[in-house]
């Protein structure tokens, strides 16, 4: 069923529309929104199952056959990313119902949330590079509004930074798309892959590739484009922080992975040095930044910068082992960082402060939350037996095997730094002698959401082998862009036979 690919995009859109129509009815909006989130997750699950059993699924939009029309393509990587993000989104949505104040939910929170998710799923599923730009804009515009949602001064300041840098990035994105279209005469990813494969003279393509990497690097918080992130991710309402840090920055990493494995395959060696160098600096900057924070959400945001450095490092090394471990890293970071933000939000709600210095001793009062935060700390820090350890271990191993001893050493040292600042944070918030504050009540829905993600990390650890097998299959598909291209053009011939 080809139409299945459109469902993860259409369901959030329909949900957004219905929640606008519902006006100010809180109960109706919450029910529709949760049903929509659940349906998105179910459709993602179904899509991944179909892709796994029947291979890459292609949907030709408007019946204009590629390379002229726009297509949606679900291969293992994109449908896996859709499933991961829809899972995190569903949990964050449940959390939002308890977290976002009623007036906000009556207004625009639910429509914006689903439009944001529509943009994210669309960016994963599109097979056309201009369409990717469009979905980027959808997710960015919704996220600007969501970061500034409560309208506090610091949120507006963060949004201003976030919006400015991303508007510039969008302009550069258009420039790169224009350059690509001017050089190759096509924007369909599969078509570009074929054409670039047969090219004799590369012309400006390596430069265009670098432009794309810079643009996606802004989304993926790559050095030197990371500075909007700590503000935006820490100022946003907590469930949105979880989406931004857990899912949205991976859209940048995904896009780099996609264009370098399908479109610009011959030019990968040209940019590899850039990606590796910037990834290394990103790791260092993120770790140093996190060490200096006393605000728990800012600490987590800086930690996201550092961890994105690892992901980019894996993308840069590009050997099969490096890519498998990067994918494992993405799964781990998406679940664990989203969960850390959600639990940090619970603590902030209970104590009424974001300064870790004013917390302390909360472990006795909220043992489950402390436990969830500890699982997240261990997952991001890479403590065995959690699968975050294997992600980091395999990544460092792949760096050594590929001959990047220095980068491997740097990654190992920074892994210890990561572990240190996260455990220090946990110790400060939950362990040491408490200040004996009276705690505010926290809705049960919020506490439960954090635990669900902690549970998922544990399940991922138990089923590590099947997970790694699946990610190896994803990586095998990435290594053969021919599979992607053939799937797309098989659809063309089938379409023309139909008419």
């Amino acid at each position: 069923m080809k139409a299945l690919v459109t469902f993860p995009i259409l369901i959030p859109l329909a949900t957004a529309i219905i929640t606008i129509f519902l006006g100010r009815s809180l109960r109706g909006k919450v029910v529709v929104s949760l049903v929509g989130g659940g349906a998105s997750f179910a459709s993602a699950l179904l899509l991944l199952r179909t892709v796994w059993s029947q291979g890459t699924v292609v949907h030709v939009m408007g019946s204009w056959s590629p390379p002229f029309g726009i297509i949606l393509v679900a291969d293992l990587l994109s449908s896996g990313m859709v499933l991961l993000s829809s899972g995190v989104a569903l949990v964050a949505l449940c959390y939002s119902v308890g977290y976002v104040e009623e007036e906000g939910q009556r207004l625009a929170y639910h429509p914006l949330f689903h439009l944001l998710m529509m943009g994210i799923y669309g960016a994963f599923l599109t097979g056309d590079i201009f369409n990717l730009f469009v979905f980027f804009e959808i997710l960015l515009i919704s996220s600007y509004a969501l970061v500034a949602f409560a309208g506090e001064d610091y949120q507006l300041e963060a949004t201003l930074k976030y919006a400015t840098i991303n508007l510039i990035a969008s302009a550069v994105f258009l420039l790169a798309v224009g350059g690509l279209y001017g050089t190759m005469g096509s924007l369909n990813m599969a078509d570009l892959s074929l054409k670039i494969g047969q090219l004799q003279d590369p012309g400006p393509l390596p430069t265009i590739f670098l432009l794309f990497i810079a643009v996606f690097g802004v989304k993926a918080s790559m050095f030197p484009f990371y500075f909007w992130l700590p503000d935006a991710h820490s100022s946003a309402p907590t469930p949105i922080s979880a989406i931004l840090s857990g899912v949205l920055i991976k859209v940048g990493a995904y896009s780099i992975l996609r264009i370098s494995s399908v479109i610009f395959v011959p030019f990968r060696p040209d940019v590899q040095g850039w990606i590796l160098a910037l990834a290394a600096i990103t790791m260092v900057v993120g770790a140093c930044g996190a060490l200096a924070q006393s605000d728990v959400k800012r600490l987590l945001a800086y930690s996201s910068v550092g961890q994105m450095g690892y992901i980019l490092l894996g993308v840069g090394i590009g050997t099969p082992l490096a890519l498998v471990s990067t994918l494992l890293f993405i799964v781990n970071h998406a679940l664990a960082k989203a969960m850390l933000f959600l639990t940090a939000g619970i603590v902030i709600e209970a104590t009424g402060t974001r300064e870790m210095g004013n917390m302390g001793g909360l472990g006795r009062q909220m043992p489950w939350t402390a436990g969830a935060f500890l699982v997240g700390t261990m997952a991001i820090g890479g403590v065995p037996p959690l699968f975050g350890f294997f992600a980091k271990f395999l990544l460092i191993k792949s760096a050594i095997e590929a001959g990047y001893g220095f980068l491997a050493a740097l990654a190992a040292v920074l892994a210890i730094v990561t572990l240190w600042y996260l455990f220090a944070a946990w110790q400060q918030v939950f362990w040491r002698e408490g200040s004996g504050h009276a705690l505010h009540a926290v809705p049960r829905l919020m506490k439960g959401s954090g635990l669900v993600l902690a549970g998922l990390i544990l399940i991922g650890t138990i089923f590590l082998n099947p997970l790694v097998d699946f990610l190896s299959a994803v990586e095998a598909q990435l290594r053969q862009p021919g599979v992607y291209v053939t799937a797309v053009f098989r659809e063309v011939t089938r379409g023309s036979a139909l008419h």
Partner: protein
Amino acid sequence: MRRPTTIIAEVVTRFAFPIIFLFSLHLLLAGHNNPGGGFIAGLMTAVALVLQYVVFGMREVQRVTPSSYLGLVALGLTLALGTGLGSLVLGWGFLTSGILHLQIPLFGEVEVVSAFVFDVGVYFIVVGVTLTVISLLGRETA
């Protein structure tokens, strides 16, 4: 009450408003095969309303427009999504446009395309968003 503008602006606006509005409808209808379309038509209608707002104030705009601007956006989105879903239900690709040639007396052959419904959706979205923006900016604050 304080007069916001001059009498010249008021008279010109009264004449210009229907002309701009009609032209925007023309753009909407012409959009399928000629320059025009839902987006530009929506902008044109919005410009007419902005002119109304600048010259006569927000109350005058509210008199001629529906009360819920976001409802207008939702209606437009529904039309656009509905067009796509229709083709999906019929087994075509999402957003495939159906074309129907009708013989209508006086007009001759008229081409009816389902993409037109999509355009109307876009039109409502653009008008709704623009009205939301000017109603927020133009709200009388204490």
